């Protein structure tokens, strides 16, 4: 029985449930080398359909203009910004797992880092769509970049929206580099196992001539450490700058100093939730149980408990200081959030983000796959509503005569649903054609990888995994 095993404090969890390197290679490479299963094809077709819905909605938006959305006075930012922040938040767990957990020598990350890095990249792609299509005059979208032009028009460098452009594109670039660099040794494994010339040729290009020599590995490890150090500040900076979009303003409920770390905690929270949702499915479909073990899921659940509580702390501070400030507008904004016309969205947010993860205090729940699956989905619903609650604060602005009730249109809704098609398409292609888990790194955390393995004098059984 899994429960109670870790009551022994000296126990070092077995991160991989096999002692055979070849088996690890097989677990990860075989899905990519066999014909796609029917489930995969059906899922891909569904994703492609949703993707085409998204393309259709965006085309319609370009044709008609942003009037087809529900945005209006006073809610000038509707679902588009909500979806942007939600997707970009999801894209945060990738770098946290790859970079920060790497720097903390958290070896359990090897089972999930590749997966979450890929998720990061696709989530950032989905996020990037919304500000892009929100500009209205799409033909002058190049204005978001500071490109010298004959009109002498420059973006406003003092606007957080411009900082977003830089923050998100830097984050995307570094995430892709990080992901790709980690892929190189595994692509070489794929290449070496290729049975057809075409496959071997293509993979040999992308494997960049990797031969696995000691010098290759040394360079690889060094580059990995440097990239990890470079991307660590990015985990904090991207969502801090996203939070600036709101917090630099004077809008009550938006302008509060805790926003940057609060947004970062929320982003990591939702990122972990979606990684776990997808991981639970992939683990089942591709049979990854020996590599993605309950220990990994347990740790992820604890992360969600921590970040969910941090988010709860931030909600509490916002409420308390709104009252403590004595500022009547600030007080009204929070009163209105909790008890005004949109009370339901506020309480969905609180129950999904603050209350639901508290269930992870119980070990039985952290080890129960169906319940954790439901909680991860609730968290992502809650995190979507968090952004909704923030944006919708606008519906009762400083001018009571303009107060209104915001409703999304069908175009808003289908554009959002359509982004799941984009995400799903890329994610399914990744699952099928690339190594889902970092083969070389998973092998590296197996006790058998220790040079002293089996040498009883130096390394008694169980004392091998020393990184914690």
């Amino acid at each position, binding site marked *: 029985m899994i429960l109670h095993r870790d009551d022994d404090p000296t126990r070092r969890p077995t991160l991989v449930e096999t002692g055979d390197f070849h088996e690890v290679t097989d677990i990860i490479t075989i899905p990519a080398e066999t014909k796609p299963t029917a489930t995969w094809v059906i899922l891909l077709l569904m994703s492609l359909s949703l993707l085409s819905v998204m393309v259709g909605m965006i085309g319609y938006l370009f044709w008609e203009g942003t009037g087809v959305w529900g945005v209006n006075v006073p809610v000038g930012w509707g679902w588009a910004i909500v979806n942007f922040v939600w997707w970009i938040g999801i894209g945060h767990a990738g770098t946290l797992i790859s970079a920060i957990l790497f720097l903390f020598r958290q070896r359990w990350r090897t089972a999930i880092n590749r997966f979450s890095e890929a998720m990061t990249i696709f989530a950032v792609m989905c996020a990037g769509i919304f500000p892009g299509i929100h500009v209205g005059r799409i033909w002058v979208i190049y204005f978001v970049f500071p490109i010298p032009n004959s009109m002498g028009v420059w973006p406003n460098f003092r606007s957080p929206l411009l900082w977003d452009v830089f923050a998100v594109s830097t984050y995307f670039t570094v995430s892709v580099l990080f992901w790709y660099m980690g892929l190189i040794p595994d692509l070489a494994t794929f290449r070496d196992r290729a049975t057809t010339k075409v496959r071997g040729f293509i993979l040999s290009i992308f494997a960049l001539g990797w031969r696995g020599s000691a010098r290759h590995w040394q360079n690889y490890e060094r580059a990995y450490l440097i990239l990890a150090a470079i991307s660590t500040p990015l985990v904090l900076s991207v969502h801090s700058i996203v939070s600036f979009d709101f917090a630099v303003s004077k809008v009550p409920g938006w302008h509060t100093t*805790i926003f940057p*770390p609060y947004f970062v905690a929320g982003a990591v929270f939702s990122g972990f939730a979606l990684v776990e949702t997808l991981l639970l499915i992939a683990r089942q479909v591709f049979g990854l149980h020996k590599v993605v073990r309950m220990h990994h899921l347990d740790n992820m659940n604890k992360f969600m408990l921590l970040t969910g509580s941090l988010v709860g*702390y931030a909600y509490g501070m916002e409420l308390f200081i709104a009252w403590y400030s004595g500022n009547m507008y600030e007080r009204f904004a929070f009163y209105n959030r909790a008890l005004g016309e949109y009370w339901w969205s506020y309480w969905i947010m609180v129950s999904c983000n603050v209350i639901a993860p508290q269930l992870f205090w119980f070990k039985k729940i952290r080890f129960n796959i169906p319940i954790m699956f439901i909680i991860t989905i609730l968290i992502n619903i809650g995190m979507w509503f968090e952004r909704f609650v923030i944006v919708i604060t606008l519906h009762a602005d400083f001018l009571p005569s303009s107060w209104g009730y915001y409703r999304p249109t069908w175009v808003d809704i289908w554009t959002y649903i359509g982004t799941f098609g984009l995400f799903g398409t890329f994610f399914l292609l990744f699952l099928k054609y690339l190594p889902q888990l970092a083969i070389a790194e998973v092998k590296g955390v197996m006790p058998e990888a220790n040079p002293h393995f089996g040498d009883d004098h130096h390394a008694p059984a169980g004392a091998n995994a020393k990184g914690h």
Partner: protein
Amino acid sequence: MSKDNYRLNDKLGGGPIFLGAGVLGAVLCVVSFMQNRKDFFASYLTAFCFFLAISTGSFFFVFVQHLARSAWSVTIRRVSETVAANLPWMALLFIPVVLGGKDVLPWLDKNMMANDALVHMKHGYLNPTFLYIRLAAYFGLWTVFSLYFLRTSRKQDESKDPALTTQMGKVAAGAAAVFALSQTFFAFDWIMGLDPHWFSTMFGVYFFAGSVVLQYCFLILTSAALRRKTGRKDIFRTDHFHDAGKLLFGHNVFWTYIGFSQFFLIWYANMPEETLFFQHRAAGSWKFISLMLPWCHFAIPFLYLMSWHVKRNIVALSVGCVWLATMCYIDLYWLIQPNFHQAGAHFGLSDIASILAIGGFFLFLFIRRLNSANLIPSGDPRLADCLTYDNGVITNEQH
């Protein structure tokens, strides 16, 4: 290797000197109180918050090690457990501040409570009864938890019972929740509350970030002293200093991030009720400190601590810790004293007296307690891992 090899018989010295410093400081405090009450309370509160932050930061360190089931930190954890257990003594040292009443917290003035519109609006929170109930709760909870961790860990020295580690892991989860709220509201009540008009949701996090930096400075310096005293490089390993140094570096960047975000959002929105805080700190010589902190608390230590040569060199790392601890003091000075001295900073007798008094007693009590049991948690089941863990650095150093 017998197990008694980890029962260290050496004692950390300096106790009587610190006691003497404490007594001298106490006398000087009385003198400075006679000279100028306002000066005294400003200085005393600053010094108090500095040493309190060492204890609460260490408390944070202890429960985080349990929550993360970390093995690397076992041998140096006793230092943090012991200094966190100074929290009950801190309650006694806080009595002068409480007696200061409206000389410390201006809103305790009956006149202000009745006539200041903002203070009046906050009466539900800013009232003396609730203030003292909260204060009792903070110190009560801190006492219970900090003594629990020290006592349980010491009990384990004898019993070697691994179940105690499991138990401490569970209590640590509750400690985390208690800590987050109690430290935040302590900072709201006794630092932010010095100016009852000003507010910031980030304030609790800012104080927390500084307290963790300070805690690592204290931990590294004390561990360095223990390494020198005991000569046990196999217990207080270079890897420990390296890793604690990394965490110090990381938390200092975190402090900067929090400080910058708070400043930046207030500066950008430029709303009078918030900018007042920085306005006060731009007056006279306060401006010099405001401009100095980003360089001396962040930029210089950032570059200095980045190299692992520094983090693995105990003397060099200790220099960095003394520097950063000084900066943490100046940071608290900058948070607290502009509320008392609007025209500019003036560091004087009362500041020196308060540091000597609180610091002297604080360190005396710490050393006495540290010496009264084994210097490391030798019964911790993760001790073996701690003594052999590998943080991935390949060097030619001789251990």
